[in-house]
């Protein structure tokens, strides 16, 4: 009974085409955003900011980027971390080499650099599909990291290829407290998430999805494949690039190219699959799930068994449970957490009747 659309008639297309057409959704989203901006800073501890929420937000953004490419446009990619690296290193260099460069501008430029690199590596997608393309994007992953390690210019000739993020100053406000970093991250993520949602519901997004679902048909109805695919690559890489910049600047502070390795790419892919391919919400759910689950398992094991278990035993069992849970979730709902949520909503709508 709680979740009813009854009585919410749409009198205009404008109303029907709102970003969240159902009133309950609108209220819930507004509440969540409000809570994130006001509530969380009041209640959460530093541990939560620094170790959980901020990285989870950043991963959500990267997942969102990958979701645009893989979930919406159907181009499977294993190079997300590579594009994050481009964003991080480009932002660092813009800050370093141009005096008085404001952070936000550098970040956007960093994203643009990632987008350009994304376009280059997206070119093969015009001919290559599916898993072949996925493996091809690995080339991007390895090549980008290799370049960053190999050419010391990118890390300002630091002996080991490590970059140290500069201080973030926005209109005279120095962002250095964990809370401030969190708020900055949150703001960027919120804006970009809204943009993604908008893209997805306009013809840009429809073109992506059409290409994803059936590219021959898409071409026949007049969607130019090249432009659409490259656009998806560019926008996706932009998101990943910005996420990379945040990863370096608001989360870790000091990063080496190694931090953006293949594991991270996989992790992000995981997030979208577990969260839900082709949904904005799924990127967030997936990121939260994948970041929190191992931590939760680790803490749970500590709480349950303390030191009574051999330490390697606990670690291995955690790993097995993690893998097992992923399989379990895929079996229960191949379309991800976002879909579970949707089914839940549908059930709520029917409640108390089963069908």
């Amino acid at each position, binding site marked *: 009974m709680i979740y009813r659309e009854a009585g919410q008639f749409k009198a205009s297309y404008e109303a029907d085409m709102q970003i969240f057409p159902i009133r309950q959704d609108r209220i819930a989203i507004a509440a969540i955003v409000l809570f994130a901006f006001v509530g969380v800073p009041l209640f959460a501890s530093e541990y939560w900011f620094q170790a959980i929420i901020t990285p989870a937000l950043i991963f959500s953004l990267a997942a969102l980027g990958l979701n645009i490419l*893989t979930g919406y446009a159907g181009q*499977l990619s294993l190079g997300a971390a590579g594009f994050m690296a481009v964003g991080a290193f480009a932002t660092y260099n813009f800050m370093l080499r141009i005096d008085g460069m404001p952070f936000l501008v550098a970040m956007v430029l960093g994203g643009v650099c990632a987008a350009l690199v994304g376009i280059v590596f997206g070119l*093969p997608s015009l*001919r*290559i*599909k*599916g*898993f*072949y393309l*996925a*493996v*091809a994007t*690995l*080339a991007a992953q*390895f*090549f980008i*990291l*290799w370049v960053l*390690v*190999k*050419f010391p210019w990118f890390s300002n000739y630091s002996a080991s290829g490590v970059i140290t993020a500069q201080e973030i100053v926005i209109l005279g406000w120095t962002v250095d407290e964990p809370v401030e970093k969190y708020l900055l991250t949150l703001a960027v993520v919120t804006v970009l998430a809204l943009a993604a949602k908008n893209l997805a519901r306009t013809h840009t997004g429809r073109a992506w999805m059409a290409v994803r679902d*059936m*590219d*021959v*048909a898409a071409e*026949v109805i007049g969607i130019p494949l090249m432009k659409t695919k490259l656009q998806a690559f560019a926008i996706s890489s932009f998101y990943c690039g910005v996420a990379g910049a945040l990863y370096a600047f608001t989360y870790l502070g000091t990063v080496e190219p190694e931090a953006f390795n*293949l594991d991270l790419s*996989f992790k992000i*892919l*995981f997030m979208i*699959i*577990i969260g839900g*391919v082709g949904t904005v919400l799924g990127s967030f759910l997936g990121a939260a799930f994948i970041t929190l689950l191992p931590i939760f398992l680790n803490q749970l094991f500590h709480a349950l068994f303390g030191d009574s278990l051999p330490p*390697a*035993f606990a670690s*291995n*069992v*955690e*790993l*097995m449970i*993690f*893998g*097992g*849970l*992923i*399989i379990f979730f*895929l*079996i229960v709902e*191949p379309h991800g957490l976002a879909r579970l949520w949707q089914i839940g909503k549908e059930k709520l709508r029917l409640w108390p009747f089963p069908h």
Partner: protein
Amino acid sequence: MTFFFEVLIAGLLSGMLYALVALGFVLIFKASGVFNFAQGAMVYFAALTFVGVGEKLLLWLGWAPGSFASFLGSLLVTLAAMVVLAILIERFMLRGLVNQPLITLFMATIGLTFFIDGLAQLVWGSNVRGLDIGIADEPVIWLLDSANMLVSKFDLTAAAIAAILVALLSLFFQYTKTGRALRAVADDHQAALSIGVPLERIWVIVWVAAGVVALVAGLIWGARNGVQYALSFTALKALPVLILGGFTSIPGAIVGGLIIGASEKLAEVYLGPYVGGGIDSWFPYIMALAFLLIRPEGLFGEKHIDRV
């Protein structure tokens, strides 16, 4: 010039070793359309089980380590383990994912990777071990004497084993009823079900086959570099081979392996110095990519059919 050939031959031989790992991927892909990311973990699991059994079980039975009996014993136990693993995978993973999008299956195999990694280390510990399978890793003497060329006996043997496996598997796929059914399953799970192809059994068969290939690869790679977690990284070497040869072609794995192996080595030696080296992390991928631009399904892969 000798040097060139030396590098070339070394490349071709290591290409065969890559092919061996790639083969496991091809098997499963060909038979179910699944890109089995866990293949690397299976290689690790197989090799670790093999040495683990030798270390613990057989020693406890009083069989001398390194003896032929112990080798055989470990081999049998490991094979049994691979069969059990295949059955478990079918029962608890694949069965629940019939007819799902391939990317979902792919992700499930990544979950499987974690599971297998954890399981292997849980049972046998993560210690690094050596492995001796009785093939000497030394140069072929007459080549060294006559042409001052280094060609490893070990690599030659391994390459031969890979070639035999490939030949057997190709025949199996092309000419047997089961082979045909496997390819049918890869095309359309539901249709295969509808005509009575028992997916469960088919999948167990393929995963066992992939497990055996993983075991062979694990033994050979393990004997080269030790049995340790890094064995699962051999998968990364196999991927470019796989795309170049085509996901669905068994001979493609070999040809791809040869091309990748040789070009990777030659590039590292002749091109590397100009750009600072270390290029074999990405060179094979770019190589494979270049081939793909000409043939999007790899050299021997099945053409993607999309008609309207």
